[in-house]
């Protein structure tokens, strides 16, 4: 019996010791990590608008070139030069969330760029959803009436994109995320 208590006492002390280390590290790094994530997001927005930057001038270029418009709790990132509009999208994929940013032209209709920032799909199959080569097939396509990701198409209309071979569910999920986000954001944008 005494041995069991000793084991439990050891486990509790070990838990306190390791938790202290982790909480200490969290305290030291938390703000810095948040700043890194914010800077990385700004870099992605600049890349979405094809704006070049260096690590030292990210904030300066961002402030000079991008206007943040907050409408009904949604932020739109508008290019001061082209008028192109970027906003975030997110939703459920097959294995986890898929999120990123999409840039549309100033008419809020044609896709200029899509960047997937987070995904947990199957590497080599659904994971292709984050690859530049696949996302480039969306460029120039229309979000109206809706973007359609279709299988085995011979010819593609202006609102249609090929699905990822062997990853139909990821393709369907991505289509739903883009269309749902677009319809919500389009209403907000039109109401401004």
């Amino acid at each position, binding site marked *: 019996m005494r041995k069991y208590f000793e084991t439990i006492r050891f486990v509790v002390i070990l838990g306190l010791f*390791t938790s202290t*280390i*982790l909480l200490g590290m969290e305290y030291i790094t938390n703000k810095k990590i948040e700043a*890194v994530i914010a800077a990385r997001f700004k870099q992605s927005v600049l890349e979405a608008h094809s704006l070049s930057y260096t690590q030292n001038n990210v904030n300066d270029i961002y402030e000079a070139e991008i206007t943040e418009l907050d409408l009904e709790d949604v932020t739109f990132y508008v290019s001061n030069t082209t008028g192109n509009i970027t906003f975030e999208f997110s939703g459920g994929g097959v294995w986890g969330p898929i999120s990123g940013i999409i840039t549309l032209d100033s008419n809020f209709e044609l896709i200029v760029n899509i960047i997937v920032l987070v995904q947990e799909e199957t590497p080599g199959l659904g994971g292709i959803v984050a690859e530049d080569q696949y996302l480039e097939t969306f460029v120039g396509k229309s979000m109206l009436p809706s973007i359609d990701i279709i299988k085995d198409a011979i010819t593609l209309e202006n609102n249609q994109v090929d699905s990822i071979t062997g990853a139909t569910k990821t393709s369907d999920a991505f289509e739903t995320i883009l269309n749902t986000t677009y319809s919500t954001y389009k209403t907000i944008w039109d109401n401004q």
Partner: protein
Amino acid sequence: MRLIKLKYTKWYNIMKQGLSESNPIAIAVLGICSALAVTNRVENAIAMGLGVTFVIIASSATISLMRNFIPSKVRMVTYMVVISTYVIAVQMFLEAFYSDIATALGAYVGLIITNCIVMGRAEAYAVKNPVHYSIIDGLANGLGYTYVLVVVAIIREMLAFGTILNYQVLPDTWENWVVMAMAPGGFFILGMFIWLIRELTKNYEVVN
């Protein structure tokens, strides 16, 4: 738990063991998964090597300090908890202060937890020996891992990209060997390196 005390030796002999005679990669062939994955760039190899070195030293020191109190039934779990704590600390540190390297290393920083070298040193050395010897042993094994990674990475980065630490060292006419940036290139160079180290230390496997 019955502890077997090792015969203590001079600190430089422990260092020599970790760096050459019992080198974790070249002789024990432990931790080669991450070694293959991160050695296509020298800066990644240095960051990974330093991360693993810190984790081995810190976990060996902690295990050694606790060695008289660890109940034998929860021995392995204790190693895992301690190692995981230090690995998460390294991960947070890299994400906060070296985010590019953290991104380049990806999941491999988290996978230091599963690196056999760390658990191996805890079980084979730290749990039986005083803290100062355990720290030297951790340092020796960490540096033994790091220098193999860096040497392999220098060769791979040079052949794959014509650079070392992103500085161009081969002429612009150099045709990059793409295979060297991929895992098969890592296997090839690591295999050659293991052969070289075993030849130099006269460490041959004996067939019974």
